[in-house]
């Protein structure tokens, strides 16, 4: 069928797909509280009392609408973490995040679900599951999940 050898080619192409995701009423309240008050809010299920962070409309387990917002602590216990050695392009800024960086899953005091965020990266050796970490906010807050810069290990003697 192919008596002659034609070159095998590929065509490079990029798909650029911009989005405007709604935060909705629940996400909007979370980031506004972060910006204005440096406070993290969750939401409590009226049936099972589970407190979810970030807040959302439905408790999936109970299939019930939630409407009781509760303030949770900026401090919590590290449940799991990783240190990442490959960079990623921040979809909001288009900039590359320097490596390494840490992610932690944090059970904030007063919450039942775990909150995922960056961990402070000066000394990853200090991290272990079970340590207390605390949110550190950016100086200029814009109303974003990333108004929290990262979570940082609380040293003995740090004021709570």
């Amino acid at each position, binding site marked *: 069928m192919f008596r002659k050898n034609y070159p095998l080619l590929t*065509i490079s*192409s990029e*798909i*650029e*797909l*911009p*989005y*405007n*995701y*709604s*935060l*909705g*009423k*629940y*996400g909007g309240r979370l980031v506004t509280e972060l910006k204005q008050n440096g406070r993290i809010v969750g939401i409590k299920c009226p049936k099972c009392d589970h407190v979810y962070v970030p807040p*959302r*409309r*439905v*408790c*999936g*387990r109970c*299939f019930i*609408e939630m409407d009781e917002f509760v303030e949770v602590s900026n401090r919590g216990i590290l449940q799991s973490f990783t240190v990442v050695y490959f960079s990623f392009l921040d979809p909001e800024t288009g900039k590359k995040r320097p490596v390494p960086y840490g992610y932690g899953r944090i059970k904030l005091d007063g919450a039942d679900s775990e909150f995922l965020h960056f961990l402070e990266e000066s000394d990853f050796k200090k991290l272990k599951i079970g340590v207390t970490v605390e949110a550190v906010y950016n100086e200029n807050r814009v109303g974003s999940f990333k108004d929290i810069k990262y979570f940082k290990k609380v040293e003995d003697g740090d004021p709570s």
Partner: protein
Amino acid sequence: MERVAIIGIGQTKYEREKKGETVSDLVFEAATKALDDAKIGIEDIDNVVTVSNDFWDGRTISSMAVTDACGSYGKNVSTVEDDGTFGAFYGLMRVLSGSFRSTLVVAHCKGSEGSNHLITNAIFNPIYERAIGLDSISSSALQARRYMEKYGITEEQCALVSVKNHKNAKDNPFSQIATDISVEDVMNSKMLSDPIKLLDSSPISDGACAIILAEERMTKKVTTRPVWVKGIGHSTDAYNLGDRDLAEPDALTRAAKKAYEMAGIQDPFREIDVAEIYDAFSYQELLWSEGLGFCERGMGGRLIESGKTTKKGMLPINPSGGVLSAHPVLVAGLARIAEISIQLRGEGSGRQVDGAKIGLAHGINGACGQAHCVWILEN
């Protein structure tokens, strides 16, 4: 076929931008409304089929993001990335399998969050059509031109569809664009891709729709107003636009034939009381009417002129206002099924078609109606 019924329906209002709700919030609203409508609880639902598309959601494995909101926690959930009529078809098969008494089918889309042009451009072959920028509007314009030229369909005849459907939408509380317009308004509206003008086109919409399908025994136990599935058919045409005559909706004719045979319908125009068909653009109501056998090929223009498809006509088409009046992609076909269910239950108030007993709902998938799904429902 075992008897399966639609026992519950739920819809959000369709709007240009639902900034207050995430896709999960919309799914929860539609799902809970369908459960309330059926007067059952989530514990009575044996499995869930969601309908979503990763490009529209801007999220891969988009189905998994709505598991909490659709009540599938701890249940079997599966997803169809197609129009809602195809999602409902899968839901129907799951009930027919005998493994599930009931299926909740829920579709969502927020057209406002992404770019219609870029997302529909990505439908096409990346090496050929996509590279020259083709999208849903320009590809449909190629189909409209081909159809209109071949059969002498005029722009004014297409405009009549838009006039009728936007007027019908005034009686539909879920519709987005409900307004009295004239043929001149359509003709003078902004040209998008010749011959398609702004008022020949469906809007960008946000919304969700849910239906609950159930086996006969459960249906009889829980509801006194079931809508029975009498017939169903679907068929697909070639992917490449160049491999089809875009003026000939052969896949739709095949799908309709299957559905009519199953439902025992010989003369669809006379036997069907109300139809909801996928008019993403005004010309499509005419072209799909031909494919569905409501008139001969090429006679779609004459059909709309005859007035027989108005709300008081012999076969009212799109009394809800159709897709022209609200076009949440993927959701729109399921909304056609929901509207026919409302009509057959006699709950259409201002838009109710008198004495509707047998209805037809139609959905499409792919560019220029590559695939079609036809439902025949009966009260």
